[in-house]
């Protein structure tokens, strides 16, 4: 499929207090952005279970956006930091599972930053469009680079375990 005609399907998990409100503001201000991100409201970016992301990708999404309040501004004090930690681990796992980690992005947008959220959405859509359709996990074994990445991660894990032992 030519990437130019490819319209990525992206699921966005937006926190109720900042980024969902930013999306509301983008609407009220009539800021135009790509229609590819479909938004699911969660109370906090900290609610985003990594399995939500995997589920979305397995269900046919080409990318996922997680959006929360800026670090230090979480409505629940500090839960976006937990989203941040999970995101770091999730990216690792995605690589192991044969998914380009660039397809999943964690962004921050305060309730006043409708414009910024729209820019994040456009940028993610453009990047995923470049990567092409995911069709995961059907096509992952086809790629030797992905297998290689997995081997490297396994090696890293083995080393880490040795250090711990």
């Amino acid at each position, binding site marked *: 499929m030519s990437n130019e005609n490819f319209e990525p*399907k992206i*699921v966005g998990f937006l926190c109720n*207090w*900042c980024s*969902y*409100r930013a*999306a*509301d*503001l*983008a*609407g*009220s201000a*009539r*800021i*135009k*952005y790509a*229609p590819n991100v*479909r*938004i*699911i*409201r*969660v*109370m*906090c970016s*900290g*609610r*985003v*279970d*990594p*399995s*939500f992301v*995997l*589920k*979305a*990708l*397995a*269900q*046919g*999404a080409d990318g996922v956006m997680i959006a929360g*309040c800026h670090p*230090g*501004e979480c*409505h*629940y*004090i*500090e*839960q976006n930091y*937990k989203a941040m930690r*999970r995101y770091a681990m999730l990216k690792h796992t995605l690589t192991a599972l044969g998914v380009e980690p660039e397809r999943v992005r964690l962004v921050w947008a*305060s*309730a*006043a*930053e409708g414009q910024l959220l*729209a820019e994040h959405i456009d940028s993610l859509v453009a990047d995923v469009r470049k990567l092409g359709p995911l*069709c*995961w*996990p*059907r096509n992952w074994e086809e790629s030797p680079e992905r297998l290689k990445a997995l081997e490297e991660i396994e090696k890293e894990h083995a080393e880490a375990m040795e250090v711990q032992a």
Partner: protein
Amino acid sequence: MAEKVGIYVCHCGSNIAGTVDCEEVARWAGQNIRDVAVARDYKFMCSSLGQQLIEDDIKKEGLTRVVVAACSPHLHEKTFRRACQNAGLNPYLCHMTNIREHVSWVNNDKKAGTEKVKSLVSAAAERVKHQQPLEPFYVKVNPATLVVGGGIAGLQATLELADAGYPVYLVEREPSIGGHMAQFDKTFPTLDCSACILTPKMSEVGQHENVTMFTYSELEEVSGSVGSFKVKIRKRARYVDYDKCTGCGICIEKCPRKVVDDVFEAGLGYRKAIYTPFPQAVPRVPVIDTANCTYFQSGKCKVCSKVCPTDAVRYDQQDEIVELEVGNIVLATGWKLFDCKRLPNYGFGRLANVYTNLEFERLCNAAGPTNGKIVLRDGKTEPQRVAIIHCVGSRDSRYNTFCSAVCCMAAMKFGHLVLEKTNAEVYSFYIDMRPNQKDYEEFYQRLLEEGMHFVRGRVAEVTDAARRPEEQGKLIVQYEDTLLGEQKRLPVDMVILMGAMEPQADAKEMGLKCGISCSMAGWFTERHPKLDPVATMTDGVFVAGVCQGPKDIPASVAQGAAAAARISGMITNGKVMIEPIVASIDEESCSGCRVCNNMCPYNAIEFDEAKGVSHVITAMCKGCGTCVAACPCDAISGAHFKNDQIYAEIEGILWDAQPSAAGTAAGGG
């Protein structure tokens, strides 16, 4: 038994229907989504007829779930939940999906918009089938209120609540309440004396039996939630015993140390090292400025202590932390003046006779450093010509893009005072004149008649470099008259810069303490810019006055009163509803690993040693769901945002994507 889902697609006039084919969405939903019993589109779902549609369908068609595809749930979720409740359906079995702010308003392509709406409707329909009936909680409302900021907005809120019979704690950072209004001489457009209308309110607050004032104090910490906040207030040491001091003022009179007053007198006047900011200060108890006090600096002097007739001076006083419990909080923290030195081309701080608006307020104030005489910095020369420059730091993309809302009127007030008190000519350099409230336009007309000159154009520079003989020893205003299209120079004696109102330097920090956010410009964000201008996204926290955005005195007073009215209502009601969105732990599934224990910032999860499992203290849970996502055994479920509900939503939202062969495997979590 299969659920019966009703789907309602709102046109919102042409707001949604303009870029989304709502009829097509409803038709498609009725044919393609499982368990849909009714799918309709309607012009305005939030109208009473729209709501009636839902109620009738619930009663006649026996709907068990409702999906409304319309605007943001932040706007109308309550409306549709109520409609469901009216028809006997649990309100939490209704789900709203946002197809206006998130689709029709951000997209011009009707085909793409319609497809996006289909996916959102499909997601909502799949999700709603998994939703469960919930009952909201109610918590008691503590009748006491904390008001932060003793300016006019905070004073109004305080008085309204105190007069209604409820206790109020008023926290003010400065040694006296009164705020910026206490610095002004006259107020536009009526020109009544600021002190004459403000000081009665100040003393009323000071004497009110229901008001406890904490001046020279700051809000340190806020915990808890609506109905029962716990707050910590730092009472800074005044070094004067609040109870013993009678406010006689002898200590101030005898203090040998004179200090430039940068706060109240805007740097134009002096105060003593032991001082009250102004004679009508409330309370009249002075404070010692330790940085300038001879005793604190060198260990000698103690004059204040020696002359005090009630022995009230306490050099060993310490800051004190007071803990209070309140039901609601009003933030009325006001504004600070734009630093006019940031525009070096206007010469403030370098050219003596360039003044800021706050300085000029003090200059023409009868109680100010010159006793109200409008004179140059030398203290005696009356100006012959005065230039007033509007929009200094506002409406300027380099500094603040917003309009400070009050400067046009304040500039005309200054013009009037100069014309009244001196023989000087007054030139006002404006971008646009904006006298847009009651009686403001009339004031503008009055100033035109009084002979104030209005020049449309931005001033490029204020300089003392003379080019012509008549410019010698003057300030020269270099400007473009945009109505004439000419570059011009005007020699004047005095320049007044109408500096912008800016958010307080610590506004963001204050917002974080109370769990509310700031706009891009730094003003506190209200719950809804039109329909809910004093509430915030955090229940029980209200905003009033300029901290929410630039506004004049009448608007600040109105907001203070509005916040008080909202709070009075809650107190009268006695209880407030809390959304039942909380976590709970299934003891059977809990392995006792305690991963969740450290996840909760509110310490709402306790470990039961005897049973070896964790459990959630419902009253302390705020429902973020972080523990739900962290639990490795799926033992925690977050009401209304349960895993199966979100998985279903994901499946629905990707109804048109190609699930791969093993696609369902990852769904287990």
